[in-house]
C-alpha cells in the first residue's frame, strides 16, 4: 500500500535547536495517531507537513507529493484543524467556512453549499449565522472541524480536536471523527495527548519523543497480539504451585504484588483450563481481564527508552 505520509530523514531546526531529528516512517493507515509528551515535536511535524516550517534536511511526501517541491499541491489535499482557537471573530460561522472553502479552490456557489452542509454535519446548523466570536469553546472546535472538511480534503490533520471539550462534546467530536474515518473518503492524522482519543479513532500510531520516532505500530495488530494476554488476581496459599502448573501448560507468567499475575496463553489453551487448575490448587481467581490498555503500555514503553529513538 502506498504510504499516506512518508517521512524521509525529515529534520527541522529552529536556530541551533534541532526539533525533529531525521524522522523516518511510512504511515499507511487510514487514520494515524500522533502521540508524544509536550515538546516532542508533534505540532512542529504537522506544521512542517503544512509547509509552515522548512525542513533543514530530508523531506516528507504526502500522498506521493514532496512537501518541498509541491507544497501548494500538498496543501490542496489537506484539511487542517489547529489546536488553538483559530477563526475570524466578526464573521458569521457560515461565511467563515465559505471563505476558507473558496481559498481552497471551491467556486463561490459550491463553497456556500458545502459550508452549510459542513455546519449541519458538525451539529452547528442552528447557529451558523451567528458571529464566531460569540461561540462557546465546543462550538469553536466544531466550527474548526467544519472549515477543515468543507473543501473535501484527502487528508485531515486534527491537532488536539477534543481540547477543552466537556465529556458530551468530546464524545460527539470523537463520533464525528469516527464517522469521517469510516466513510473511507479521506485519511486522518490525529495529534492528541489523550490516549483514549487516539485508541478510539486510529488504526496506526506514531509516538514522538524529543524529536525522534519513539514507537510506530499498528494498533489493530497490537490488539490481535494482546488477545492472548491476561491479567488475573488470585487468592489462596498455593499461588506458587498454581504458577508452576500454569507454566507447565506453556504459559509465560509474570507474578506481581497481592496475587496479581500477568499471563500470555499459548495458542490453543482455553481460559477455562486456568480455572480448572486454580480449583485443583485451591486457589481463587477473583479477577481476570484481557489486557485492553495496549496503547498506554506502548506509550509508556516508548517514553522509557533513553533517547526516544527506535
Amino acid at each position, binding site marked *: 500500500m502506498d504510504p499516506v505520509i512518508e517521512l524521509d530523514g525529515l529534520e527541522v531546526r529552529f536556530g541551533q535547536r534541532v526539533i525533529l531529528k531525521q524522522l523516518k516512517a511510512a504511515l499507511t493507515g487510514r487514520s494515524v495517531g500522533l502521540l508524544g509528551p509536550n515538546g516532542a515535536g508533534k505540532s512542529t511535524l504537522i506544521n512542517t507537513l503544512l509547509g509552515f516550517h522548512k525542513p533543514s534536511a530530508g523531506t516528507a511526501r504526502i500522498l506521493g507529493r514532496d512537501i518541498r517541491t509541491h507544497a501548494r499541491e500538498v496543501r490542496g489535499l489537506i484539511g487542517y484543524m489547529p489546536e488553538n482557537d483559530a477563526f475570524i471573530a466578526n464573521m458569521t460561522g457560515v461565511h467563515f467556512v465559505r471563505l476558507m472553502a473558496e481559498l481552497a479552490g471551491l*467556486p463561490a456557489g459550491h463553497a456556500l453549499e458545502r459550508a452549510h452542509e459542513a455546519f449541519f454535519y458538525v451539529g452547528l446548523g442552528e447557529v451558523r449565522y451567528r458571529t464566531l466570536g460569540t461561540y462557546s469553546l465546543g462550538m469553536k472546535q466544531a466550527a474548526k472541524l467544519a472549515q477543515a472538511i468543507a473543501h473535501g480534503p484527502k487528508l485531515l490533520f486534527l491537532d488536539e480536536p477534543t481540547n477543552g471539550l466537556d465529556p458530551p462534546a468530546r464524545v460527539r467530536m470523537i463520533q464525528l471523527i469516527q464517522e469521517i474515518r469510516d466513510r473511507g473518503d479521506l485519511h486522518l492524522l490525529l495529534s492528541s495527548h489523550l490516549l483514549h482519543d487516539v485508541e478510539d479513532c486510529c488504526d496506526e500510531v506514531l509516538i514522538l519523543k524529543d524529536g525522534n520516532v519513539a514507537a510506530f505500530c499498528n494498533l489493530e495488530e497490537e490488539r490481535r497480539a494482546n488477545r492472548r494476554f491476561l491479567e488475573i488476581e488470585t487468592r489462596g496459599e498455593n499461588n506458587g504451585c498454581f504458577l508452576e502448573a500454569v507454566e507447565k501448560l506453556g504459559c509465560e507468567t509474570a507474578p506481581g504484588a497481592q496475587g496479581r499475575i500477568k499471563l500470555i496463553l499459548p495458542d490453543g489453551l482455553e481460559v477455562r483450563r486456568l480455572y480448572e487448575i486454580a480449583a485443583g490448587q485451591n486457589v481463587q481467581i477473583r479477577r481476570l481481564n484481557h489486557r485492553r490498555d495496549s496503547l498506554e503500555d506502548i506509550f509508556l514503553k516508548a517514553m522509557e527508552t533513553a533517547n526516544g529513538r527506535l
Partner: protein
Amino acid sequence: MAVYKKTYRPYDGELTPSWTRLLVIPRYAFAEFRGKRFLSIFFIASFIYPLICALIIYVQHNASALGLLGVQQGARNLIAINVTFFMSLLGWQSMLALFLASFIGPGQVSPDLANNALSLYLARPFSRVEYVLGKMSVLVVLMSLMTWVPGLLCFCLQGYLEGWQWMKDNPRLAAGTFFGAWIWILILALLALALSAWVKWKPAAGGLMFGVFFVAAAFGAVINQVQRTAWGHLFNIGHVVGSVWVQLFEGSNRTTNGAVFFRAPMGEDLPMWCNWMALAILCLICLYMLARKIRGAEVVR
C-alpha cells in the same frame, strides 16, 4: 444534496484557477466595507473635491457659465489649470487616503492575527505573498479610486475642453498624478498592513499610522532646528513624498513647493536620490515587518 442530510461527502467538483483565489480576500473585504456606514459615507464624501475641480475646469471653458457668474472672459485664469491645480488635487485626495488607510488598514491583518486565523489561510493552497497582496489590494483599489483615478479624469476633461495640444504639452501632469499617487498608495498600504500586523488592537494601529507621519515629521523638524540642517526632513514622510512629487510633476524646472501636507519648500531640498532611498527603506522595513508576522505558525527559538 439537502443540508439536512447530515453526512460527510467528499468534493469532486471543479476548482477555481489558483490565481483567482487572490481575489477572494478583497471580495470579502469589500463586502464588509459596504456594511460600514461611516466608511462608505467618508469614501463617497472624498469625491467632493475632485467634483469641484471638474466643475472649475468646466466653468473655465464655458463662456456662458462664466457670464452667469459675472466673470469677464479675460479673467478666466483666476484659477489656473496648471501643475499647482493638479498637485493640489492629488495632495488633498492623498490626505484623505491617509485617513481611509488609517480607518481600514488596521482591520485587515490584526483580526486574523489576534484570532490565529493565519494558520487557516496558509494551510490552504494560498501563499503568504498572496495573502499580503490580497489584503493590500483592498487598500490599493480604494485609494486609487480616491487619488489618481479622479486626477486623471480631471486631466482628460481639461484635455478634452482645452484641446489635444494642451495634453501633448502637459504629459507630466498625468504622469505625475499617476505615479505620484501610486508611490503614496504603496507606502500607505504597506505601512497600514505592517502596523496592523504588529499592533493587534485596531484603534492603536490606526493611531500609530498618524503617529508615523506626524510624530516623525515633528522629530525631523526638531533635528533640523537643533542641528541647523535639512536632513531631518528624511523623517518627514510628507516632505519626502512632496519632493518626489515635485520632481515627477516638474522635473528639474521646479516652480512649486508641493501641496497640502506634502510640502517641500524650495531651498530645503535634499538630494533626490536620498528621498527615493528613504522611501525604499521605509517600504523595505514594512515588508520585513510583514515577513516576520505573516506566518502560518509562530516560531519560538
